[in-house]
């Protein structure tokens, strides 16, 4: 039912031989121990990759913004300055850790960790590929929404604990912005759930295919609008410009992390960049076919049947292709997120709330209703098959 990364590994023969070997040592618990080991190793790898992606995100942000403003950007550390994020990391560890004397120390320490926990926990269901999804929970998307809301609590507490006016304003703004924009996000996810008929990422992605015309983005006009609603709202949920009011540099100094220094600030930044990646990955999974690549399994079949490749090797190759497809789609969206930041000016608080409650939420509700009606009226057929059918009937006449 719930497939995990362990399910993928258990298809190989080596898995069973390792289980046999382990059962000599651990007895009945061998399977459990191996499951734990695989989960722990894969989780470590994913967290490592995500931390690197987060770090490279800061580099990409600076480099792309530099390109847009005809500057050089970081170019000293490593080739093209690509190691800048490592230098930044070292710098953050070396910085003095300052806790303001008036701060609520317990909350001050806990807030960045809460942010980090929320973001890391969402990684459990991010569909990197059909095999390397840590755990394909039945309630996948819904779980992700729940865990991501921890970040809002973390940001609020960070602002509160600092006991500084800038931080407090940033924290209040951040929390209210995150919860407000969660409504359009949830409603758009609901639209996709309606089309896919399931909450797990596996179900949602299998409902699509590698070719763009089978993506849920082009399933019907309402899903098409939903994508933009989702994208705009998730920009706001991750506090990205033009919705970066919680950390608005020009008015709130640095918002909720004004008082944070060194590594504690690093946790907030890392959490933000990983969250942007997760949000883009979810957008890719919901609307852009996720890890599906063009021709999908027919390539794998061709490799086994025509070339006579070992089926396990062919499967691994297709996993790699899936990973490539997922990262390509996600990083393309990541680029758009950065692009938007350096293009649009920041919104005002009242404009922010108006956009959420008077535009995005009603449109998302309308999309949900429209999508339900479409599914009923056209028997759940996507728009391309309707066009195809019409063309076929027209050709017959």
């Amino acid at each position: 039912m719930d497939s995990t990364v362990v399910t993928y590994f258990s298809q190989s023969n080596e898995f069973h031989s390792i289980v046999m070997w382990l059962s000599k040592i651990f007895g009945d618990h061998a399977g459990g121990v191996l499951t734990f080991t695989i989960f722990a190793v894969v989780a470590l790898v994913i967290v490592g990759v995500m931390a690197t992606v987060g770090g490279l995100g800061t580099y990409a942000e600076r480099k792309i913004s530099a390109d847009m403003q005809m500057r050089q950007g970081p170019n000293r550390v490593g080739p093209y300055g690509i190691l800048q994020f490592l230098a930044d990391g070292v710098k953050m560890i070396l910085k003095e850790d300052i806790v303001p004397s008036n701060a609520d120390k317990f909350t001050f320490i806990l807030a960045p960790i809460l942010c980090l926990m929320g973001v890391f926990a969402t990684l459990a269901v991010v569909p990197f590929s059909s095999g390397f999804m840590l755990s394909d929970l039945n309630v996948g998307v819904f779980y992700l929404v729940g865990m991501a809301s921890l970040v809002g609590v973390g940001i609020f507490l960070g602002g509160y604990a600092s006991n500084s006016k800038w931080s407090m304003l940033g924290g209040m703004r951040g929390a209210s912005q995150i919860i407000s924009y969660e409504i359009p996000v949830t409603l758009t996810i609901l639209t996709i759930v309606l089309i896919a008929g399931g909450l797990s990422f596996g179900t949602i992605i299998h409902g699509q295919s590698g070719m763009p015309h089978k993506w849920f983005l082009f399933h019907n006009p309402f899903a098409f609008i939903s994508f933009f609603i989702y994208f705009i709202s998730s920009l706001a949920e991750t506090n990205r410009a033009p919705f970066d009011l919680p950390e608005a540099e020009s008015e709130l100094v640095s918002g909720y992390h004004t008082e944070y220094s060194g590594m504690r600030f690093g946790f907030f930044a890392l959490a933000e960049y990983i969250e942007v990646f997760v949000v883009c990955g979810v957008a890719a999974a919901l609307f852009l076919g996720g890890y599906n690549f063009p021709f999908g399994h027919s390539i794998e079949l061709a490799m086994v049947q025509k070339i006579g490749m070992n089926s396990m090797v062919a499967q691994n190759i297709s996993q790699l292709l899936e990973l490539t497809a997922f990262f390509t789609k996600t990083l393309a969206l990541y680029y758009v997120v950065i692009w938007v930041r350096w293009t649009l000016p920041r919104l005002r608080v009242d404009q922010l709330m108006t956009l959420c409650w008077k535009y995005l939420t009603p449109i998302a509700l309308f999309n949900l209703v429209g999508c339900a009606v479409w599914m009923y009226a056209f028997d759940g057929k996507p728009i391309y098959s309707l066009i195809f059918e019409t063309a076929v009937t027209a050709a017959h006449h």
Partner: protein
Amino acid sequence: MFSDTLFLLSSALTLGGAFAVLYSKNLMHSCLYLLGSLFGVAGLYACIGADFLAATQLVVYAGGVVILMLFAIMLTGGASNKINKFGLKKIPGMGNFSTYMIAGVSAFVASLVVLKIIADVLKSQGPTNLVANEPTVFKLGVLLVTDHILAFEISSVLLLGALIGAAIISRPRREIHD
């Protein structure tokens, strides 16, 4: 094996959080402990295979209600007001000997009733075998649109009432600005 770990972790988090909520003197910290406790409850739901309920617990309570409480605390100016308006530094313990006696007796009776209810469950515990997690979402959905469709529709009216109530309560009073 992992189920035991998950259960122990969640129940420790639930109980520990709940006790910490009671014993913490800082309102903000209490709220944080409550978050931990609610997370523990979500873990307990996951333990009994109610995956959708666990996720709902996360979305509604951990994400929504805790933020609501934090905002409510901020309405009163945070935890900085340690002195109340009567100038008292702390609130005296509520209750006296007789109230404690009544509370103790009623807790005892209630626990006996609960024990009686779960006795059958404890007796019937046989050998355990692991089954795959059944998705509860599908069953819930089917029940919501067939057997319990009235409850589903009425809940929307309930939510409507809550929405309008929230809006009316929070309206600025006009006579203040005369």
